[in-house]
């Protein structure tokens, strides 16, 4: 177990969407800087868009939408708890980012005049830009990494960040999951882009890796930011998605909606007005499933054969291309069959909901020199394009931050204690396999944290998580690959605990199903029109506190505020 030492100016952790863009933009702005991009997989095929992306969910294209409209819609969809400055920072760069990606060779749908073909899926405005040929996006990004001379290191799982004596970021520590080498990276700025906590709840299939998110996104970044002293935000605003049952991939109303597909209950009736993913929509979805009107289906069988073929050419080719194989195995054909849907297990994700590491409009966390971008940061509903934009913002700001700075002074003890923690499961003679602990932990997450969030259940959950924390002392890994899984279990446990603690702290219901607490049935704006933040306290335990919602750039009208609370179709519409 050798230790490898690396020194760089800017370290970017996570090679999916935001990370490569942060690294490219840092080098583009300052070519003399040493920029290193790490991933636990291979940057060529890492992250949520490993196989491609089938649509931009939040394109703000002049003529279709304005930054003001978009920021307001996301504010409403999030029941008002947003930092509009951060969402606006995305919105004003959205169109330029699309054009830049377009110039790199990424394909977006255009109409016959060459204009971007924007579709309406959201409740209010039009922001969806299809990417029927979005399967090669990673290849175009990878070419730019090479062009701008970004150094890349694959198969490194980062386990903890290094913090300097003066409180600013000092680098990170990682495990090489192939060689078992311990790697210490000193950096003046760190950009964390490790994605969502997608391996938090257990899919109902019971398959640990049958998650909606890329299962490499185990919540490592949440855990690392937390242990580095950064503020986490909106963790109680869980990610829960309407997915294809068992396959656990998107159904995907964003793609099918513009073609005429929609969601129905067992009677074939529409029950939600908008298929755009929001907590309010998910609450109606859950009520339908639980209220005896389920199952819920994606309905496409009324569409013309050639339309269905077009849909198949997107859904079975780009984002999750094994989908066609799944349907084939079950004998499901969109032309004659409905597609059974269900509710996903819980996760944490800024990109789909709003649970992430707190960042301001410059992608800065509360730890000096530490940035977060992509699904990991709390910029609500930011999706893929928001990840690219916040990656850009973080990379460019980090370049300014490192000017004139030396590496922070650190206490070597941090490195020694982390080394000990990382290798303990490998050195132990015998013990419990990481996957067995992970299975039990994630089953408990389902049992005690899946909404509706019941106070006494979450309290029991915390007791179970504490007991599993003790079990980690017996975790046994047989090789570096299993050791990577063991380190992920630590991160999943941190996420589970923080999710329970933040959920218990907010004593109201908000964001539809994402934070539905039957013990506090109503939304309470008087006491809870605030962010709930979590930070590691002096006692080493998570501490909750509130952060005011910054004054809006674009105030909402009274009649706009509750638009997303009226998701249910008033009288069932026969299909």
């Amino acid at each position, binding site marked *: 177990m050798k230790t490898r030492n690396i020194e760089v100016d800017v370290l970017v952790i996570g090679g999916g969407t935001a990370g490569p863009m942060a690294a490219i933009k840092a080098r583009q702005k300052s070519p003399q800087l040493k920029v290193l991009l790490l991933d636990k*997989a291979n940057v060529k095929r890492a992250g949520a868009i490993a*196989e491609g992306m089938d649509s931009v969910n939040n394109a703000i294209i002049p003529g279709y939408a304005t930054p003001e409209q978009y920021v307001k819609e996301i504010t409403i969809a999030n029941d008002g708890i947003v930092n509009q400055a951060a969402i606006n920072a995305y919105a004003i760069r959205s169109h330029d980012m699309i054009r830049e990606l377009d110039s790199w060779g990424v394909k977006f749908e255009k109409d016959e005049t060459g204009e971007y073909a924007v579709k309406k899926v959201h409740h209010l405005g039009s922001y969806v830009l299809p990417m029927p040929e979005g399967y090669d996006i990673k290849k175009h990004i990878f070419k730019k990494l090479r062009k701008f001379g970004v150094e890349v290191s694959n198969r490194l799982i980062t386990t903890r960040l290094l913090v300097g004596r003066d409180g600013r970021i000092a680098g990170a520590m990682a495990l090489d999951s192939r060689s078992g080498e311990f790697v210490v990276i000193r950096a003046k700025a760190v950009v964390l882009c490790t994605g969502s906590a997608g391996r938090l709840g257990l899919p109902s299939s019971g398959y640990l890796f049958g998650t909606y998110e*890329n*299962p490499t996104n185990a919540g490592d970044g949440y855990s690392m930011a937390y242990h580095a002293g950064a503020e986490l935000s909106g963790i109680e605003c869980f990610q829960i998605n309407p997915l294809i049952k068992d396959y656990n991939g998107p159904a995907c109303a964003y793609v099918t909606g513009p073609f005429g597909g929609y969601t129905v209950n067992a009677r074939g009736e529409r029950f939600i007005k908008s298929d755009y993913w929001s907590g309010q929509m998910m609450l109606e979805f859950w009520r339908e499933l639980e209220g005896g009107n389920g199952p819920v289906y994606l309905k496409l069988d009324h569409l013309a054969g050639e339309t269905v073929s077009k849909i198949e050419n997107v859904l079975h080719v780009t984002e999750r291309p094994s989908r066609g194989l*799944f349907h084939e195995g079950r004998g499901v054909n969109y032309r004659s069959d409905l597609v059974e849907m269900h509710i996903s297990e819980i996760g944490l994700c800024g990109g789909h909901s709003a649970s992430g590491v707190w960042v301001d409009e410059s992608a800065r966390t509360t730890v000096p020199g530490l940035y977060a971008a992509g699904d990991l940061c709390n910029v609500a509903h930011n999706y893929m394009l928001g990840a690219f934009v916040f990656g850009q913002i973080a990379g460019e700001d980090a370049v300014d931050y490192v000017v004139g700075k030396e590496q922070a002074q650190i206490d070597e003890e941090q490195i020694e204690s982390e080394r000990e923690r990382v290798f303990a499961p490998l050195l132990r003679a015998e013990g419990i396999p990481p996957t067995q602990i992970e299975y039990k932990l994630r089953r408990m997450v389902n049992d005690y944290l899946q909404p509706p969030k019941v106070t006494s259940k979450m309290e029991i959950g915390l007791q179970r998580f504490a007991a599993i924390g003790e079990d980690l002392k017996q975790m046994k890994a047989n090789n570096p*690959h299993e050791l990577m899984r063991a380190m992920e279990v630590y991160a999943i446990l941190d996420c589970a605990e923080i999710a329970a603690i933040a959920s218990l702290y907010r004593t109201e219901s908000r964001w539809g199903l994402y934070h539905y607490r039957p013990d506090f049935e109503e939304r309470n704006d008087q006491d809870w029109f605030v962010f709930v933040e979590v930070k590691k306290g002096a006692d080493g335990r998570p501490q909750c506190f509130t952060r005011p919602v910054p004054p809006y750039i674009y105030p909402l009208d009274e009649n706009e505020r509750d638009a997303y609370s009226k998701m249910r179709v008033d009288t069932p519409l026969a299909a």
Partner: protein
Amino acid sequence: MTTYETRGLVNIIVDPGKCIAEKGCRVCIDVCPTDILILDLGNGKVRMAYDECWYCLPCQHDCPTQAIRVEIPYLLR
């Protein structure tokens, strides 16, 4: 459970007649996000070592000889 080396039914099927790993090809091993494909030292071909597949398909799509077929994992089928 999942981390033991898979001895039963695997859902990533490698055609040993087409796989050219013994010539140094490592494409599928490199692109797999969950790092579950390994070189079998017995026959010099690639095989699935961990039941941790996201059925995402880069291994199948990037294989230069079309030697890989990914099936949906049994629990989800």
